[in-house]
């Protein structure tokens, strides 16, 4: 399997070209047609989630939220490679991966409408809470993976973060621990080229993000993040390696955020139209659809059915989320400790 030499963008691992052609059949991972249609379905669902959420936010029904449009292959490819027992440590832009791994969409809507009850992840979903402070989830994931190793559980751990997160001490200390203790960690950097307005080149002088793995004594791979098969394969290999006791991997998904950083952001202030146009031509959803159509496993009517279906599902989730009764003020005291302290009980009584 071709891996990125350090440093060399041209060596980026790819399977599908932007026209949906397979570059080298030998590289193609084992996926049934059904798998492929499922992956496509999640990608389309995630984009619909963004679209509907964006409108809700504009109507004041959601808070600020971070759309992932453009990064669907990077999230779906990697999350689809996870086994049932694997664990996911998300960031604030990981909706596609979270939904794929079983996070109910209505909870996500509830959370992004400003209600912490939306982060009560169901017990059977192997997933940690969303980290808002950039990069801070990386040591958590490293520690969790290390804990799996100590407990001799064959579990792989995936953590998501952005290109800018690599500038934080948390990235450094977390990955260094993972390296030293050979934790079964797969660290996925979705390099979408920007931290809000700050371009990747201002974030770090290293040519690739992948090469930063050299500092921690394990492998780094740069992969075309808009190529769902390449992302799937690289992640699957890294997870197998992790579960087999061979330590962590850093994966750089080279991708692009097609939309705004969040609903509060205006990307036209800081990036040229041509750049966005260039990336639109590399849209991960289009690419996979082209592949499926060429392969004869996808038709126009499949597409129409899917689009209708995801719209219904997302709207149902919105309805469900909005039907939930408002949280009670006392709720803010109920999960501070296992048992509210006397001080908190007193403060709670001031609510009345």
């Amino acid at each position: 399997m071709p891996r990125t030499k350090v440093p060399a963008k041209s060596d980026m691992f790819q399977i599908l070209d932007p026209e949906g052609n397979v570059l080298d059949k030998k590289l193609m991972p084992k996926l049934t047609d059904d798998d492929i249609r499922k992956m496509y379905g999640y990608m389309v669902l995630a984009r619909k989630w963004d679209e509907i959420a964006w409108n809700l936010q504009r109507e004041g029904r959601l808070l600020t939220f971070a759309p992932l449009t453009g990064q669907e292959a990077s999230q779906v490819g990697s999350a689809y490679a996870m086994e049932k027992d694997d664990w996911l440590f998300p960031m604030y832009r990981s909706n596609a991966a979270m939904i794929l791994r079983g996070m109910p969409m209505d909870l996500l809507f509830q959370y992004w409408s400003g209600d912490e009850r939306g982060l009560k992840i169901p017990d059977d979903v192997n997933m940690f809470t969303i980290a808002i402070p950039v990069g801070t989830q990386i040591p958590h994931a490293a520690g969790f993976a290390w804990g799996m190793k100590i407990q001799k559980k064959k579990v792989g751990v995936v953590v998501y973060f952005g290109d800018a997160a690599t500038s934080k001490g948390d990235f450094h200390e977390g990955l260094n621990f993972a390296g030293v203790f050979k934790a079964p960690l797969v660290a996925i950097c979705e390099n979408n080229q920007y931290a809000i307005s700050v371009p990747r080149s201002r974030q770090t002088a290293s040519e690739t993000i992948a090469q930063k793995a050299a500092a921690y004594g394990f492998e780094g791979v740069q992969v075309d993040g808009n190529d769902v098969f390449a992302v799937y394969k690289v992640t699957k290999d890294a997870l197998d390696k992790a579960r087999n006791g061979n330590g962590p991997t850093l994966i750089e998904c080279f991708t692009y955020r097609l939309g705004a950083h969040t609903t509060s952001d205006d990307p036209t202030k800081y990036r040229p139209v041509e750049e966005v146009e260039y990336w639109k031509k590399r849209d991960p959803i289009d690419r996979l659809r082209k592949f499926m159509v060429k392969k004869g496993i996808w038709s126009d009517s499949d597409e129409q059915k899917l689009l209708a279906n995801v719209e219904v599902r997302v709207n149902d989730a919105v309805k469900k989320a909005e039907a939930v009764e408002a949280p009670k003020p006392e709720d803010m005291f109920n999960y501070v400790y296992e048992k509210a302290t006397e001080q908190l009980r007193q403060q709670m009584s001031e609510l009345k």
Partner: protein
Amino acid sequence: MKLNMVQAINLALKQEMEKDSSIILLGEDIGKNGGVFRVTEGLWQQFGDERVIDTPLAELGIVGTSIGLAISGMKPVAEIQFDGFTPPALDQIISHVGRIRNRSRGRFHLQMVIRFPSGGGIRALEHHSEIMDTYLCHIAGIKVVVPATPNDAKGLLISAIRDKDPVIFMEPKKVYRAIKEEVPEEEYTIPIGEAKVREGDDVTVIAWGAMVKTVNEAREKIGDKYSVETINLRSLKPLDTNAVVKSVKKTGRAVIVQEGPRTLGFAAELIALINEKAFLSLEAPIKRVTGFDVPTPLPKLENYYLPSVDKVVNAIEDVMRF
């Protein structure tokens, strides 16, 4: 000139930078993008990439390199994007920012400002509505300033930039665009360490930052029922102890309104000081109206958490009726 706080801060930065080329701004998204609250809008265009500098996303790095920049002769004004992202910089602030003058016996000092949007009330995500005053006011060797109005903001920021000691400048984001007031076009300074008092006789109400607006509204609501003296502290460190003590000696009663969690909030320090210096004048226990000792709730419950006008009015009533 009627300005809101964002505009007042922007103007202060611009005017100081025009006068003193050693002043540089650094932070996340403060350049081309003009800052997530648009506080630095237009400054990158005016002063260029070497003076209005987008940094990597690394708050420790922003403050840590600002220390070095200040020692090298620059006057860095660092922006942290939100209150909730100041903790990664706390080690550099605690271990170094407040200590370098002392450690070097005056050979080195840090003429630098760390500014950030502060506090709740804008329906934001987790970690975007925090109050950091306790962590910062406990540190020796730094100054901590909190403007409550556009006017405060301009005059205090100019003082902060010119101060030979490191100044933390907390900008109540709830006030950013909520108040417009007359702000002099020309430069002016407000001394750090001087509170602003609106006189009254019956009870002293002390606040800072966004809570000043809440207190003013409570004062309106109370009308002529009681004569309320309000103190806008403006700086927490150094504190205008005299203004506080003088007022409480006069009124004998005090209410303190604090946005952050109760335990070890700045109100506790004020109560301790009043206890020490005006004990015999006190006619009622000092009352504090504060946030609760819980993680700042998300927007659906935020209004139950923040001190409200009604809570302040009730506290004044309680203290008066004691």
